[in-house]
């Protein structure tokens, strides 16, 4: 099936539209795979404090907390890009501004992540 880039060129433009799509997929798959594990680790709460606190000590590990920061970033990106997708779906003029919408999404993402990185980073360092 994969046709070579012929007279019409490749269908994949590799620009704002495709990068936002790739990121949406990667973050989405990452989040659901984590969620599968997270439902199980939360279920341990039914076995009482000793078992549950042992499970949670994994989340308190400084290196794991950096992974949690990545998870938070994935959730925030996926949510913001979801808004961008819905704007494209429901606002007839949005496709005209699609590239600008991508940069606006990224700006809000970076703007939101700066305080989050600062606060989580500070908490991790304080607990070291």
């Amino acid at each position, binding site marked *: 099936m994969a046709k070579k880039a012929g007279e019409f060129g490749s269908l994949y433009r590799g620009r704002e539209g495709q990068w936002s799509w790739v990121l949406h997929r990667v973050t989405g*798959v990452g989040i*659901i795979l984590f969620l599968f594990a997270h439902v199980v680790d939360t279920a341990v709460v*039914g076995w009482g404090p000793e078992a549950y606190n042992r499970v949670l000590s994994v989340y308190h590990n400084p290196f794991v907390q950096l992974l949690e920061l990545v998870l938070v970033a994935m959730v925030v990106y996926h949510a913001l890009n979801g808004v961008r997708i819905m704007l494209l779906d429901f606002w007839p003029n949005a496709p005209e501004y699609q590239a600008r919408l991508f940069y606006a999404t990224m700006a809000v993402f970076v703007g939101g992540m700066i305080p989050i990185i600062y606060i989580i980073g500070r908490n991790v360092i304080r607990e070291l």
Partner: protein
Amino acid sequence: MGGYELWSWLFMRISGVVLLFLAVGHVVIMHVLGGGVGRVDFKFVQLRWQSPFWRTWDWLMLSLALFHGVNGLRTVILDYVRSRGARFTLTWFFNVVGLVLFALGSVVVFTFNPANFPTT
């Protein structure tokens, strides 16, 4: 484009809007505010789940996130898995995982009794 895909599209948007608040709120509350994940322990959950508000939040988030995520996986599988048999098997594997975890999570959220454990 049949009815199923249209409902799936609609569900992704509705659950997405709700999760925008529930899931982003959840990671911010658990990992950013109040000292971060370091303060989360059994006692924290025990106190939190005394409130029907947080139980409802957590259960709604659990349900929507699982169905949203498993439906997302279905879309991804549809895109990349070319063999019909493998596509069917993988899609149903994740459907079953999603349903089992939905059942497990629901049981935990609704049956956890904070009074069963001493609060000291």
